[in-house]
């Protein structure tokens, strides 16, 4: 070669080629990925058209008897690791001084501790409140997920892409309802899916199926004939922490001010 080995122009050309190719690869990579992300295959096979559904959930706190069936069913259906909860039931007892005492059903048996609360005498009010992911319309968890692993499906369910989640736990911090956790086995964010694998094939979520008092309900907000819509039109309902602007799709009937 006629180019002398210490010609700076040669090095400059080399650096330019390196930078340009890196940029090129990056650009092509982004294009390839955006094509891929644009059209994920709808679940439930060809029979399920997710544009016809917008899933929502309702809890009638007057009906809940705190039996814990929903918690046991959820654990069995979704293989929820011990010590973590995709759904749980809170027990509220308001005492003579109008002070609320709260605890939850725990363990595999999902039972309440009989001795955890103050004596029955002077109790003003007692009730149970089931909790689960609110599948917010304006969900903070999917907003803050840095890699887009937490996302909203077109039919209104907030899910986690298990193949993509990096396990940073930013969504766990951001969820105002503490419904998310880092699964100690898979090391990714875990949460209630509305039993997406069931509702997309026409089956109710496990917790709804086993609830003996129909305190838990689910339905499709795009279907005018849907029972859930009729209930929401007939009854007064409340949302959890509505001031945060998350717009939950889990509607609470008969919710007490004490509940957050």
């Amino acid at each position, binding site marked *: 070669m006629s180019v002398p080995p210490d010609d700076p122009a040669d090095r400059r050309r080399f650096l330019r080629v390196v930078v340009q190719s890196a940029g090129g690869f990056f650009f092509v990579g982004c294009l390839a990925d955006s094509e891929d992300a644009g059209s994920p295959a709808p679940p439930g096979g060809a029979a399920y058209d997710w544009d016809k559904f917008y899933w929502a959930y309702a809890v009638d706190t007057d009906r809940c008897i705190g039996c814990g069936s929903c918690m046991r069913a959820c654990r069995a259906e979704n293989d929820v690791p011990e010590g973590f909860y995709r759904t749980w039931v809170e027990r509220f007892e308001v005492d003579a001084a109008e002070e609320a005492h709260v605890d*939850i059903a725990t363990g595999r048996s999902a039972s309440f501790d009989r001795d955890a609360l103050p004596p029955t005498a002077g109790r003003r009010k007692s009730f149970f409140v089931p909790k689960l992911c609110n599948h917010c319309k304006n969900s903070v968890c999917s907003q803050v*997920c840095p890699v887009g692993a937490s996302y909203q499906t077109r039919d209104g369910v907030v899910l986690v892409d298990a193949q993509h*989640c990096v396990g*940073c736990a930013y969504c766990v911090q951001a969820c*105002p309802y*503490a419904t998310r956790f880092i699964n100690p086995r898979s090391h*990714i964010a875990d949460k209630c899916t509305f039993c997406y694998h069931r509702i997309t094939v026409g089956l109710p979520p496990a917790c709804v199926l086993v609830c003996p008092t129909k305190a838990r309900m689910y339905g499709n907000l795009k279907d005018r004939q849907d029972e859930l819509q009729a209930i929401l039109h007939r009854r007064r309902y409340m949302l959890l922490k509505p001031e945060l602007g998350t717009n939950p799709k889990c509607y609470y009937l008969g919710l007490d001010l004490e509940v957050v």
Partner: protein
Amino acid sequence: MEGFVFPNEQSVVWTVMIVLYPYITGLVAGAFVVSSLYHLFGREEIRPVARFSLGAAFVFLLFAPLPLLVHLGHPERAFNIMITPNFSSAMAGFGYIYTAYLLLVAIEIWFIFRDEMIRRAGGGGFWRLVARVALLNDLRASEASRATDHRIIRFLAGLGIPMACLLHGYVGFLFGSIKANPWWSTPLMFVIFIFSAIVSGIAVLIFHYMLIARLNGWKIDQACVRSLGRFLWGFMIIAVSLEVLEVVSIAYKQSEEWEILARLIEDRLFFSYIVLQFLVFSLVPFLLLGLNALFRFRDAVSNTILWIASVMLLIQVLLMRWNVVIGGQLVSKSYRGFTSYMPGVFEREGLAVAVVIFTIPFGLLYLFHRFVPLFPPEAMRGAKSVERPVVPSTELH
């Protein structure tokens, strides 16, 4: 645990590593600001530590993502943050901001040390090879090329300040924008993080420079450390005022969240927040640095005061990170109780790993100094009349 806590809040998910990460990026941002005081703002008296501060910024920057990787559930997927960023998330900016800033600091360092590296490349041994690779085997330098280098350095030093603020302010924003957490959710967090970063950066430079000078028997440059001491005093006043302002404004407004935050401060964080962060590690350095700035002490006394104040402020900023990161997670989102947290020593995200991650940059900085001197020749002169040889001495005299 105390009161009612939601069942998934039994343990704290962001632990020691997430305390360490903003601490390290804070040191980076602060050290960079000091180097820019000289390179951009022409504070000549900072010259003895100007290069050293940039070197420190660089090695800390190299290690800033390590605590994050240790923390991630799937570190092998870390690059997802750049491959499929979700731009509605503040965290998605990390990969880009970090990489851009790392490149900027690396390039600035390259230009600043080009002359030294050329000198190294003319020598022998392992470092000769490193220098030749770094220089792409171009060993020429002229007055014209030095002038160009200087212009580039000034430009990068200027560009680096907003980028340092972005890198570190972004960390504050990450916490401040979490509306679910009453202890974090304040726009002040962004500003507090930037100023506490500058405080920790200046403090680590004073601490480290004085330590190295003492160990090597160099004469400490009084003009330099006195000036740094005054900057440290000024920036700590701003940082601590903002920290106080944040909590006072929530308390004064008496909004809904104050009920639980008051319990957090009075009960769970009383010792680490009120006693340590404010009463001991803010008030004492404030008084020490104030005395040192307002009165003329003998050099030895002044240096001791400065060194102690710097060490205390380094601890203050670490405490502040701890009280923000851990403190915020102690409050249950039920507003009815608190989780508890005690770091383990030998677990994956434990104290031992944190100490190792925090120590490596100092070792790397030493290697850096073996390669090219981080201090100008006049800063490496002995305190006594007997000149001691310093590393690497041959090229410099």
